């Protein structure tokens, strides 16, 4: 018995380390030890990787006292996500460490960086609804601190937009969760699988997690945030934190267990729109980070489409899950390596060598689906999925995928161009950004090839037809981009999302003005008294009149007569 308990405690401790390490380090930031923390920053992500690599699947730990019943565990999906996130956070923390050497605001950055890391890891491990929600919230709010790090006006605005949307997402999520818990009567994620029937919950979950992945109506924060956040943080955002949204969907609307055709259609529509929208708007941005943000919107749109396909029926769900995960892994790695490339460019200034540019070009085009890259594998998997699903979807994908691929290609080329123009940031060259980029580049290039679970899709993508199918949109995209760059680009047509009016501002200022601070209850002291005092002259006069002898006599007489009448019963 005791050994079983000890073992359980050991598991709990083991799993707690994943989220606990960053949290402890974040706490340490508030103490004078913060200088040391900077040095050991990458250590924070290590337990996550270790656990992801070593822990057996199905490891579960209960911490009863923790936040209305804490439950942690590692399943297959969780392991993939943990691995992925751990890797990206590791790279990001290396990158941050080198960045922080020249930054005065390091405490704040460190704190939020570590806290969001904690949230991210925690939510992956969480097996309870509330735990998931807790870490999700932790991550979301901590990320705000990262976005706003620069402290400029633009950064604050970006942060504000982010915050509003996060808040909306949180509320939606809260509502969804509470309904779920009410209808299932359980707090464990496993128990709610397939329990979602109400359209309302669907909508709420779409909103709650959609905010994180920038699904279409809720995408507003992404571009400015990527643009304004420090690059390592943006990398973490784009590579790791975004995935939390996908994971959320997977957890709460597990594909294969949930089928909801209408919802799926909605997801597909929203995703497809986002995919196109991201590309189109991205071309008008003049900042590399923003372009990457738009690309994220677009890519996440694609992922949403995949998810939507999975929702069509149970069968489709079973097929869609691996595709979805594949795409997520691909996107995360690629996007993070693009950010690290951006970091490299930013730290070097204009003096990027051709080698470096072409190195960055690889993940960029991988995103578009260049053959032999992860992108191609992912897209072929996507297509494969539509094939499995049958006609309407297949037709759609033959039409839709190339278009997005072309768009992404244009977008990426645009990004590369912008990268070349990027001005040098920071005071001096940061050591290690090259190494970090290299590591991520390698990871991007080889992960899918080496990943056994993806072997089916890899082999599937290796055919000439597939090769051609993957290549022509990229090539077309290149041509189109050249044409666009030649003929269409105009100075004034740049978008700056940061300047847009946000819901937040509307709420704060418009709404507030409408309701005008009218102190109708409170300004006047005791309105009752003032009301009375309106009568003062009359009161005083009547009181004076009552004191006159004549009136006294009258009242005396009347009193006598009244009482006589009353008593004598006359």
């Amino acid at each position, binding site marked *: 018995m005791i050994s079983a308990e000890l073992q359980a405690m050991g598991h709990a401790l083991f799993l707690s380390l994943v989220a606990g390490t960053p949290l402890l380090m974040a706490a340490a930031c508030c103490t004078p030890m913060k200088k040391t923390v900077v040095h050991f920053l990458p250590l924070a992500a290590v337990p996550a990787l270790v656990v992801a690599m070593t822990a057996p699947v199905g490891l579960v730990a209960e911490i009863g006292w923790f936040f209305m019943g804490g439950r942690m565990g590692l399943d297959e999906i969780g392991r993939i996500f943990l691995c992925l996130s751990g890797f990206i956070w590791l790279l990001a923390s290396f990158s941050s460490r080198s960045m922080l050497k020249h930054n005065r605001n390091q405490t704040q950055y460190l704190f939020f960086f570590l806290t969001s890391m904690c949230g991210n890891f925690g939510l992956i491990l969480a097996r309870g609804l509330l735990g998931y929600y807790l870490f999700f919230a932790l991550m979301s709010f901590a990320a705000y601190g990262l976005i706003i790090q620069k402290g400029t006006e633009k950064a604050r605005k970006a942060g504000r937009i982010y915050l509003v949307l996060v808040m909306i997402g949180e509320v939606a999520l809260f509502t969804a969760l509470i309904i779920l818990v009410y209808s299932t009567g359980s707090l464990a994620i496993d128990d709610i699988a397939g329990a979602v029937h109400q359209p309302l919950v669907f909508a709420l979950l779409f909103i709650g997690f959609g905010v994180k992945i920038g699904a279409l109506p809720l995408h507003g924060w992404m571009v400015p945030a990527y643009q304004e956040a420090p690059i390592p943080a943006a990398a973490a955002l784009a590579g790791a934190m975004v995935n939390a949204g996908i994971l959320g969907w997977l957890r709460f609307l597990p594909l294969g267990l949930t089928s909801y055709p209408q919802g799926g259609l909605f997801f597909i529509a929203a995703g497809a729109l986002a995919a196109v929208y991201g590309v189109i708007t991205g071309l008008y941005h003049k900042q590399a980070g923003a372009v990457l943000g738009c690309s994220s919107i677009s890519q996440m749109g694609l992922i949403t489409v995949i998810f939507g396909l999975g929702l069509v029926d149970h069968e489709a769900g079973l097929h869609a899950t691996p595709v979805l995960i594949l795409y997520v892994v691909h996107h995360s790695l690629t996007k993070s390596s693009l950010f690290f490339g951006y970091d490299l460019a930013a730290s070097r200034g204009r003096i990027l060598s051709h080698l470096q540019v072409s190195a960055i070009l690889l993940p960029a085009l991988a995103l578009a689906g260049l053959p032999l890259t992860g992108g191609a594998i992912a897209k072929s998997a996507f297509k494969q999925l539509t094939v499995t699903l049958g006609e309407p979807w297949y037709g759609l994908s033959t039409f839709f995928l190339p278009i997005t691929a072309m768009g992404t290609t244009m977008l990426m080329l645009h990004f590369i161009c912008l990268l070349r123009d990027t001005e040098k940031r920071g005071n001096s060259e940061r050591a290690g950004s090259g190494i970090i980029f290299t590591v991520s580049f390698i990871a991007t290039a080889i992960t899918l090839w080496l990943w056994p679970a993806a072997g089916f899709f890899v082999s599937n993508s290796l055919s000439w037809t597939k090769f051609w199918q993957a290549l022509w949109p990229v090539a077309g995209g290149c041509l189109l981009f050249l044409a666009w760059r030649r003929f269409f680009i105009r100075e004034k047509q740049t978008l700056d999302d940061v300047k847009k009016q946000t819901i937040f501002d509307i709420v704060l200022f418009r709404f507030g003005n409408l309701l005008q601070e009218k102190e109708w209850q409170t300004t006047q002291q005791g309105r009752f008294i003032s009301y009375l005092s309106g009568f003062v002259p009359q009161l005083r006069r009547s009181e004076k009149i009552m004191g006159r002898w*004549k009136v006294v*006599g*009258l009242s005396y*007489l*009347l009193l*006598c*007569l009244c009482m*006589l009448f009353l008593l004598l019963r006359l």
Partner: protein
Amino acid sequence: MSRTGKSHKRLDGFQRLLLLLVICMVMLLGYIIWSTPGSKPVLTDAVAQMQEYSGVESPVTAVLLNFRGYDTLLEVMVLLLAVIGTWSLTEAFFPVQGSEISPVQMGAVRLLAPVMCLVAAYLVWQGSHLAGGAFQGGAILGAAGVLVLVTELPGLRTIPVLSLRIGLVLGPLLFTGTALFCLFITGDLLGYPKGAGGWMILLVETGCAVSIGLTLALLFAGGRPDKESIWKNNP
């Protein structure tokens, strides 16, 4: 309105209303008096029965000083209160300075004052069997005092304040003392011991008469004497 000074000539509407109401009231009460002829008082028989135990022959005196002596005790206090009240208010302002007093008046007063005192004493004594008593006697005494005051004779003015106070308090104090004495003797306040009623009542009445007389005279003087027992505007 009366403020214009014509109030006694013509009544305005409000006053007429009042008059009407007063008349109504009076008529109503008159009707009630007329319609209730009144019953035979229970008390009359009782007084008649107990007369012999009261120690006096006059029923009124018996009621005043024996049966309802407690009332009278308080009533004497009322009179004293009036003096205290007036003294607390103001100083005496009588007589008006400088007015000539005719010798006839002086003479008459000199002659009358002792006679009045005598009459007063008689009235007090008579109170035990006929109409009369402390109040009547006191009234005469008071009148004498007023006469003396009016004529600026030195009689009252030269009395020291303390003596005045003693004189004022004498009656009430005597009354209270007697009452308490009776309380100790018979167990009842003002329950005169058997047979002693007569002279005790006389004693009380005498004391009261002096005090009442003094009270009335001093009320006429209209205020307290100042410290040296001399009226303020003594020439």
